[in-house]
Each structure stands twice: as structure tokens, then as C-alpha cells.
């Protein structure tokens, strides 16, 4: 049943079974003769936070890059809101990399406005509303005091927060995260994961879905609504683990521990 069609109020960020935002159907990704991922099928619903969990080098990042339209798929079908990746004009996809990739000659704020500058085309001049949006994002990621600092003056954690703000600057509907905080220490990483969740839950953005690549089982359980457990290369779907826990999630909680155990068992190489 389509709730919109019958005029009922719909929370756009609540899972809607009939609205597969990202659909992968028997997708295979190949580099030359080497299979990087697949065949794999899954779907991501509107309102979902999904983790792609798998060992290093299993091809999960390749999957994410295919969704971002950066690499082609060898066979199968991959669509975002019904259109091929990279062409889905109605849906904006933002990809955050493992490395911050800040331009060293730009300040935090200048880095964050980059997507807006590029979207203006040749003029490269951003308008006032884009500038205030950037300032709002700087505040949201807690970098207000460092808005005019250069990347080399920031810590690794601050650099990743700036990268997150830059990714959000393009107002994505779907946020793709490639082990975004993987290079950081555990304390910084947890703090940033909480920051990310609070932004996701706040509804201050257009975000409809988040897909995060990770190889950390506790991180997947702490963050996601569903965990897609992947095999080693080429990545295939081993199991889907739903995580029906409210936020904030307490690792000491018995349900948390149970789901952690289930995920661990699913991820164990057989």
C-alpha cells in the first residue's frame, strides 16, 4: 500500500518497504579478469542506515564506488531511485572517503564550499545562502573555531569532520561512507560516529539513507539499522542482520551483545 497515495502523513525517513532507494540485482564488479564483488543482490530503503561489513579487501569499497557511479558494473542491475548510478539526477549521492582529501591551499570553510563552487559552473562564485549553509555545517561538525584554519593546522579527526561537512554541503539524499573514520584512533572515531548519528537523526539534512562500509563489527552494530555481512573477495552477501535497537546504543546492553554475537557468527569464515 502506498501511504502517500492515500494521503496519510509519512515520515520520509521511516523505512518504507516499497521504496527501494538503492537496488542491486545480481551485481558483479570486475577489474580486468579479477572479480572484485558479486554476484550480490540487496536493497536499501528510504530511512535506513546500512552497513556493508566485510574483511579488508573483500570488495565492499568497490560496491560503494559503483553506487557512487565512479566505477562501472560488469553485469547485473544497479539503480538509484530507478536510474543508473551517476545519472540519477533526482537523487544526489555524496561519497565520503577514508582519507579526508582536503585541498591543502584552502581553509576549512573554503574546502566545505567546494561542492557549491563546482555546481555553479564556470563562475565559481557562491551566493550568500550557500555561504550560510557552509557556516551552519561548520558549526554542526564542531569546527566553528577552525573555519579559517588550513588542513595542516587540523588534527586527523578535525580533518575528517571537515570532509563530512563538505560531503553534506552538496545536500546528498544518499550518504556513502567508505570507512570514514577508519584511520583515526578509537576515541576520536567513537566521538565522530556519535556526531554522524546525531546529524543523521536530526533531520537537518535531506539525507534519506546512509550506506557505510566498515570492517568493524561493533561499529556496524552501534550505527546501523541493518548490517549486510559480506564474504571475502569477491564480496557476496552472507547474511543480513537487522539491528532493532534504539539510539543511543549501549554496548553493555544484553541485546547489543546478542546482536554482536549473531553478526560475529555470520561474519566468521566458514
Amino acid at each position, binding site marked *: 500500500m502506498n501511504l502517500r497515495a492515500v494521503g496519510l502523513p509519512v515520515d520520509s525517513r521511516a523505512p518504507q518497504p516499497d521504496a527501494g532507494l538503492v537496488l542491486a540485482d545480481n551485481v558483479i564488479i570486475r577489474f580486468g579478469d579479477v572479480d572484485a564483488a558479486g554476484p550480490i543482490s540487496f536493497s536499501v530503503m528510504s530511512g535506513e542506515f546500512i552497513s556493508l561489513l566485510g574483511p579488508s579487501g573483500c570488495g565492499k569499497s568497490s560496491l560503494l*564506488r559503483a553506487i*557512487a*557511479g*565512479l566505477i562501472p558494473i560488469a553485469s547485473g542491475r544497479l539503480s538509484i531511485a530507478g536510474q543508473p548510478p551517476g545519472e540519477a539526477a533526482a537523487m544526489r*549521492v*555524496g*561519497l565520503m*572517503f577514508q*582519507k579526508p*582529501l582536503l*585541498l*591543502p*591551499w584552502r581553509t576549512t570553510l573554503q574546502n566545505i564550499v*567546494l*561542492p557549491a*563552487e*563546482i*555546481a555553479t*559552473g*564556470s563562475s*565559481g562564485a557562491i551566493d550568500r545562502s550557500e555561504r550560510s549553509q557552509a557556516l551552519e555545517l561548520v558549526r554542526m561538525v564542531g569546527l566553528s573555531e577552525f573555519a579559517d584554519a*588550513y*588542513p*595542516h593546522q587540523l588534527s586527523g579527526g578535525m580533518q575528517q569532520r571537515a570532509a563530512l561537512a563538505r560531503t553534506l554541503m*552538496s545536500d546528498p539524499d544518499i550518504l556513502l561512507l567508505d570507512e570514514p573514520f577508519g584511520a583515526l584512533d578509537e576515541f576520536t572515531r567513537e566521538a565522530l560516529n556519535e556526531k554522524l548519528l546525531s546529524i543523521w537523526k536530526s533531520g537537518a539534512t535531506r539525507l534519506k539513507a546512509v550506506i557505510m562500509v566498515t570492517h568493524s563489527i561493533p561499529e556496524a552494530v552501534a550505527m546501523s539499522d541493518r548490517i549486510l555481512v559480506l564474504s571475502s573477495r569477491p564480496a557476496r552477501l552472507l547474511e543480513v542482520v537487522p539491528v532493532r535497537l534504539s539510539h543511543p546504543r549501549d554496548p553493555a546492553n544484553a541485546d547489543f551483545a546478542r546482536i554482536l554475537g549473531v553478526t560475529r557468527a555470520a561474519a566468521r569464515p566458514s
Partner: protein
Amino acid sequence: MTRAFVVPFSFFVGLVIVWQVFVVAAAIPEYLLPSPLVIVGTLDKSLLTEIGYTAGEALCGFAIAGVLAFTGAILFVRFRTIEQGLFPIAITLKTTPIVAIAPLLVLWLGTGWWSKVAAAALISFFPVLVNTVKGLKAPEADFQDLFRTMRADQFQVFRKLRVPYCLPYFFSALKISSSLAIVGAIVGEFVGAEHGLGYLIVISSAHLETPAVFQAIGAAALIGISMFYTLEFFEKRIVFWIQLETE
């Protein structure tokens, strides 16, 4: 004064003193090795004119080379066919000694200003070209993917990523080329000229006026050092985020 300055300066002064004492004590004839005091004592205002010629030729050639090499590098990186076709030729020209080409330049352009400018430009062109190409290609694949996710066009990728990214490489190459430009100008003057430090060296050594040869050599070194540090001054301000090593 910093230690980094004081230590090399003290050594320099020490060497000059040793030189002076050695020349006087061993009674070396002036035409073989003049003492530092003689070299400085016979300095003449006319040296400034010769410095002006050589510095002007070197700077002009250097500037032409810088502009052409930067433009060429952008074309090379933007259009692969041009790079494939011209890069091997560029490398061949780069390995050809300027001394071998200089007589041709004088033959074509005459004994005046332009043959020296051409020699200076020719010798300083290739390091800038090669390094700038390297710099334009230096942004890692992730950076290019980032720009693709933002749907940037080729022009934007150049303007906002590749060109700023290559600036440290560009400056590092300019510093290498600045001393080469003087070599080019002086070699040009050796072959055929009526002015300049190269001309002064040739004429003075033929007449065994060795102090003047030393004065010219010192002046050439001074031009090189001033160009190098002027470039470094600008480099530190423009490319404030990184400095590549210059050998």
C-alpha cells in the same frame, strides 16, 4: 643572526683568509690565481653594465621558458596525444648539451641580445616542463574521484585541483632553472657577443687579466643566488602549505 647563517658565513670568511694567506705566502703570480684583496681592489663600475646584460638575458629567457613550459605542461596533461608525440622529443632536446646548440643560435639570431635569451630559455625550459607535468598528474586517484562525485568538468578539475596541486612542483623547477638560465646566457656570450659576463670572461682570460675573470665568475654566482632567493621568497608565500626539496 641565526646559527644557520653564522656557521656557513664563518666558514666562507675562513676560506677567503686561507686563500689570501696562501697566495701571498707562496707568491703565486696574479695571472694564475689573484688574491681576494686584488680581486676586490680592482673592482670597477663597468662590471655592473656587464652584470646588467647577463642578468637581463637570463631573466628574459627564464621568464619566456617559465610561461611556455607551464602552458605546454597543461596541454600535455590535457591532451595525451600531444604528450605522447612531443614528450620523447622534449627529452631528447633536454639531453642535448646547450654548448652544442649555442653556435646555431648565434648563427640564426646574431651576436646580440636574442641569441642569449634563446639559450637561456632553451636550457631552463625542460626542467619546468617535466616537473609541471609531474605536478599536474600528482593528485592521487581519490582526489580525482572526489571531483567526479561533485560532477566537476575538466576545466574545473584543472583550475581547482591540478594547477594549485602542481604549484609546489612548478616553483621547485623554477628554482632549478634559475641557475641554468644564467648558464645559458653565459654560454651564448662565449660563442659570440660584445657584452656580458661571458664575454668578459673570454676576453679577460685571453689577456691574462685573471682578476676580472674572477670578478665575472663572482658576479654570475651573485645573479644566480639572487634569483634563487627571490623565487624562494615568493614560493614561501604562494605555496605556503608545502615545500618540495630542490637539489
